[in-house]
């Protein structure tokens, strides 16, 4: 079990007051807060080691290079990959764009097909729509079952010899649905297709082993797992990465440039053009240390408990509709809901008056909103620093929302 009280002491922002109330941060699925350990690591990097890595032979440069490459090794170990399979990007969204530019656009043509699901974040929809527009490929959407889980039967029926890519989220950022990616990976690979996993909502919250899952790509963002913004990761299976063309070109990603042409650097540097985000990598490394000290199994257990509690409490509130699975075993720490007759932005705005931060809107998942028959919803999401008392405060806040709207 987590010592949440002790964990909370590591997060300075949790002491902040919003509208004279203690901040209750229930929006970690958007971005997590940062512990002192991460903040200090970045400060220390700039105070002691800052230089442009991979470029010179003086000591600071050597240290900066070491820190950057050590971070890569740490990420690799964290998800059971090889360091050369870890490409640093800005975020999950950029990782998807990298796959689009370096794999899908050059290799897929009519009658190739791509499969995604209706619960995807726009980051895992729009790149494939662009491939469809440019290359005439087909894009198929897998639907949900009534309980908010993925319709695996439909996936089985849709996949065919033209299917080149299946790209699915591991955990839905709205429904919280945990998709059985290991099982899906088998289906996809038996068909000879490539399997991309959007891990933005799973890597920060549970043990991830890319070999166990068997995926070809896994994308995730540092800022959702205690690290700074603008450092993200694309894991790519070595054999696949080696076959791919670079994403962005320029400095640091080449071996030799002559006036006639260029020889690309080896993976993963081939995909990292320009001065990298060393402070981000350093922060991510510290974040992984922090999470590993707690233990990812414990993180998951804590969130399961909070999710169970939130589902129980929310279902007791009249006029509240909950979306997604109600079984915490197949649900991440994400609970989406609406108060009947009140727009989610009004819900979030009134909750803010009580210092409570929840996300509202379409959550960059407009096709899912349409599928659910709603325009928007509110979402509470949990992490290692959240407590049951905060969920109680949320419930109290929702009663206030109903009062304001005279429900």
């Amino acid at each position: 079990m987590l010592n949440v009280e002790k964990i909370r002491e590591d997060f300075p922002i949790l002491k902040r007051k919003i509208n004279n109330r203690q901040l209750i941060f229930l929006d970690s699925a958007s971005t997590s807060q940062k512990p002192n350990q991460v903040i200090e690591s970045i400060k220390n990097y700039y105070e002691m080691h800052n230089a442009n890595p991979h470029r010179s032979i003086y000591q600071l440069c050597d240290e900066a290079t070491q820190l950057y490459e050590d971070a890569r090794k740490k990420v690799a170990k964290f998800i059971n990959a090889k360091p050369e399979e870890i490409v640093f990007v800005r975020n999950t969204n950029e990782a998807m764009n990298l796959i689009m530019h370096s794999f899908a656009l050059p290799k897929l043509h009519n009658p190739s097909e791509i499969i995604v699901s209706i619960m995807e974040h726009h980051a895992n929809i729009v790149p494939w729509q662009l491939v469809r527009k440019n290359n005439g490929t087909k894009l198929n959407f897998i639907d949900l079952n009534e309980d908010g889980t993925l319709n695996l039967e439909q996936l089985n029926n849709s996949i065919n010899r033209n299917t080149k890519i299946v790209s699915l989220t591991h955990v839905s950022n709205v429904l919280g649905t945990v998709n059985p990616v290991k099982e899906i990976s088998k289906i996809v690979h038996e068909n000879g297709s490539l399997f991309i996993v959007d891990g933005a909502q799973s890597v920060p919250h549970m043990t991830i082993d890319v070999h166990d899952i068997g995926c070809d790509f896994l994308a995730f963002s540092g800022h959702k797992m205690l690290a700074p913004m603008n450092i993200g990761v694309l894991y790519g299976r070595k054999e696949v990465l080696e076959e791919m063309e670079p994403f962005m070109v320029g400095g640091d990603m080449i071996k030799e440039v002559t006036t006639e042409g260029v020889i690309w650097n080896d993976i993963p540097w081939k995909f990292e053009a320009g001065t990298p985000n060393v402070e981000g990598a350093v922060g991510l490394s510290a974040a992984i240390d922090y999470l590993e000290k707690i233990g990812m199994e414990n993180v998951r257990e804590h969130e399961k408990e909070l999710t169970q509690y939130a589902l129980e409490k929310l279902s007791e509130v009249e006029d509240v509709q909950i979306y997604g699975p109600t079984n915490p075993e197949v649900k991440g720490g994400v609970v989406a809901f609406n108060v009947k007759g009140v727009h989610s932005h009004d819900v979030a705005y009134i909750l803010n008056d009580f210092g409570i931060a929840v996300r509202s809107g379409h959550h960059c998942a407009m096709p899912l909103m349409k599928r659910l028959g709603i325009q928007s919803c509110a979402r509470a999401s949990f992490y290692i620093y959240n407590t049951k008392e905060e969920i109680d405060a949320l419930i109290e806040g929702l009663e206030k929302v109903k009062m304001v709207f005279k429900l």
Partner: protein
Amino acid sequence: MIKEMYREIILERYKNPVNAGVVEDADVVVKDYNPTCGDVVEIQIKFNNGVVKDIKFQGHGCAISQASTDILIDSVKNKKIGDVIRITSEEFLKTLGIELSPLRLKCALLGLKILKTAVYSYLGAGGEI
């Protein structure tokens, strides 16, 4: 602040808008979005001799965006195009009479932004003032 923002008139107009609907023979139809909130408003206008003859809106979104559009339409019905163009954000916010945070200003001013776009696109297409 919450009480002041969700005044009776805002809640009433959100729940029961009086200017919601469609203008069948509209001269101009403009729809726009507030991407942060996901508010959507479409305004339809029929002009006659340089005057707003009929105007209605449809949309969905937060209480502020929908109610403020409904209230805005009250104030421009039968008004001359020249007067509609001259409505400033500050004036309209005064009419609304609610205090708003910077993010919510976008909600409150969505209707006015669309109204202005609609009037200018009507004039741009050769509509008489």
